[in-house]
């Protein structure tokens, strides 16, 4: 009976695997799936199609087929294709998050690297090691990195009559009276409150301030989750050394700082404001209503900003700076029918056309020789006629978070769902006992992690 049932599923998979549409040409078909990360934005589509077209014209062994799926449907589509017997071969660009959401779906690239003598020394060795997972091997080759920094609306500082943040890491903040302050969370909070204004023009430090009618905010971390917020105060992980759950104490501090920023000091957009039309439904910085926004390099690739802005260093917490990092890679699926051909395509993407693709997605190339003047070229093309503190972006790389804020946890998505409930709660409710909720979060994550170990 049991065998019979298994047989049905096996039959689906096998039939689907060996059946399928007949290959018309003798060319090997390789499907490239885009959707788990960058690459679904309208302006990037044509550029990717162009690269595929050129690849297909350049040789006659492989026919590369591009498949772009809108991000919010990409997970279900990929899952259906993987288990419906019609798996794509190459998937990317994809971050750590997307990769770990499909744990078990990827092949170890190491044997192929050796077989085709792919030269890994074109990347920094730590970058390559970043993609090595114990027990699973080399999942992905480095493609692009996206450091984070502060996007600053200089016009809002000017209106408030407040000096701009320091232009380099390590420098202090000099206030309007000429006094120096360390560029840290306390300083940020103080100036952010002055930059937070209600519709009558009172700022958040004034007793007349009306928190129900705020029109401008001082600080925000755009599009992140609990781990991203925590990492502003320092890197960490939910996974304790014994495999259970822990809450890094500085993460708890970060959450409470943000909670205070939303509901008591009001300099940080809370949930309802943050998703409102006023703040462009989450695209805070380009709304021109948030003075300082912490975000990644990719934002500069597609944001529509029509005011004077520049990039500034991430503030420190207790003397230590952490600028969280995003990294993208390309992967090959286990279900791929032609891993060898897929690897050829993958090496083409991360090596031959890496520079061109990175410019499309707005990422810094992981390939060393392309890094040199990438930022200058990218900004000159994307934001012509403006001067930027590009050294800040370059320097942010050395403050990258380790462990990364997107790194692996047991039962990745379950844990993710649980801590998103926590952020939902604190972003939307003014009267939460944050310490008690953190304790509950820890207990629930502990259960999830320990259940996964069994």
């Amino acid at each position: 009976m049991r065998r019979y049932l298994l047989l049905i599923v096996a039959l689906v998979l096998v039939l689907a695997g060996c059946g399928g549409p007949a290959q018309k040409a003798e060319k090997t078909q390789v499907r490239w799936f885009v959707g788990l990360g960058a690459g679904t934005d309208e302006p990037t589509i044509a550029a990717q199609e162009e690269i595929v077209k050129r690849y297909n014209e350049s040789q006659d062994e492989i026919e590369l087929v591009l498949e772009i799926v809108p991000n919010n449907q990409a997970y279900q589509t990929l899952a259906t294709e993987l288990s419906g017997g019609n798996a794509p071969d190459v998937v990317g660009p994809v971050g750590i998050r997307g990769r770990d959401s499909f744990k078990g779906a990827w092949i170890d690239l190491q044997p192929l690297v050796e077989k085709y003598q792919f030269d890994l020394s074109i990347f920094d060795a730590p970058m390559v090691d970043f993609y090595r997972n114990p027990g699973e091997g080399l999942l992905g080759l480095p493609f692009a990195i996206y450091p984070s920094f502060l996007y600053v609306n200089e016009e809002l500082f000017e209106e408030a009559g407040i000096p701009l943040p320091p232009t380099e890491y390590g420098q202090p903040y000099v206030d309007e009276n000429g006094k120096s302050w360390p560029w840290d969370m306390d300083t940020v909070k103080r100036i952010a409150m002055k930059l937070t204004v209600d519709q009558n023009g009172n700022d958040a430090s004034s007793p007349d301030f009306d928190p129900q009618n705020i029109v401008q905010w001082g600080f925000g971390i755009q599009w992140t989750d609990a781990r991203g917020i925590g990492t502003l105060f320092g890197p960490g992980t939910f996974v304790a050394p014994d495999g259970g759950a822990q809450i890094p104490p500085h993460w708890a501090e970060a959450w409470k700082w943000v909670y205070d920023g939303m509901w008591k000091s009001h300099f940080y957009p809370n949930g309802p404001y943050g998703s409102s039309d006023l703040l462009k439904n989450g695209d805070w910085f380009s709304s021109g209503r948030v003075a300082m926004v912490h975000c990644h390099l990719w934002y500069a690739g597609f944001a529509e900003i029509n005011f004077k802005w520049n990039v500034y260093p991430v503030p420190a917490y207790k003397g230590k700076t952490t600028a969280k990092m995003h990294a993208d890679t390309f992967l090959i699926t286990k279900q791929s029918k032609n891993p060898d051909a897929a690897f050829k395509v993958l090496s083409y993407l991360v090596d031959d056309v890496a520079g061109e693709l990175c410019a499309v997605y707005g990422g810094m190339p992981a390939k060393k020789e392309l890094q040199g003047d990438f930022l200058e070229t990218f900004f000159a093309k994307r934001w012509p006629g403006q001067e930027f503190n590009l050294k800040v972006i370059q320097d942010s790389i050395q403050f990258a978070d380790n462990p990364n804020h997107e790194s692996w946890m047991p039962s990745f998505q379950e844990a993710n769902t649980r801590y998103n409930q926590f952020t939902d709660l604190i972003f939307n409710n003014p009267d939460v006992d944050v310490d008690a909720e953190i304790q509950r979060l820890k207990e629930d994550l502990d259960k999830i992690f320990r259940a996964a170990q069994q």
Partner: protein
Amino acid sequence: MRLWEYRWGLAFIAPWLLGFLIFYLFPMVASFVFSLLDFSLADPGATTFVGFVNWRRAFVEDPEVLASVGRILLFALISLPIGMLFALAVALLLHSRYLLGTRAFRTLFYLPSIVPFVAAVIIWQGVLNEHTGWINLAIEGITGLDVTGTDGIRWLADPRLIYFTYTLIGLWGLGNTIIIFLAGLQGIPIELYEAAQIDGAGPAQRFFSVTLPLITPVVFYNVVIGVIGLMQYFLPPYVINMGSGFPNGMTNFPMIYFYRQAFTYLNMGYGAVIAWIIFFLGLFFTLILFRTSRYWVFYAGGGEES
């Protein structure tokens, strides 16, 4: 004679029977088999047979399943009567002989059902925002009460309001239900009203003794389809909150939980169990409705055997 009827009956339903055998039977059986497997969509090659482990988990170990069923029943209790009464009321208004410009009004009330879903979601998220949403602004503008902001009406964040908010969103997509009621009303012979009028029946009496009995077949249809739809209620809470269950997990409905297990955690084995629970729940209510229909659904053509 009977044989003749058998043959013609089967011939008429043959398209469906064939379609069912070709397109539905295998996927339905397969999805039941899934519920007996440890089946990760990310790594289908590693699938193993686990028997009724997933079923036991759903019924014994995982309180979330039962809780989600409770939530959808509560939501259905609120949403179904409000939705049905609203649709029937609108249909009656649109059917009224007092209404001028009937065609224009029918089109207006159907309009929201034509709007593509991507656009509708953006609209609802926009109008329900407590600070900038038009609903709060309109209420404030008309009544003068201060209802905007996080100390005002929190449509999507207030656990006491949330089921009514989703009911409200649901009213917007009722175009089909309204049209079905209308089609039912159109089918009522005018002579019956005339006869009732001669007998001296008032408007209320006419409604309860003529209109309502004659549209019971479409009321029945709308209720059955409404219940089936509610058991699978999914899209609005999924897109508005990314299926996080916000607020307080109150929108963690069974279908949301299925989707999360199957397509977020990629655990199709356990997901299939939840889907089949949704199925049995829907089947249970559908059968009850069919059983009771003989007492309250009136078919002019005779409905003796449903």
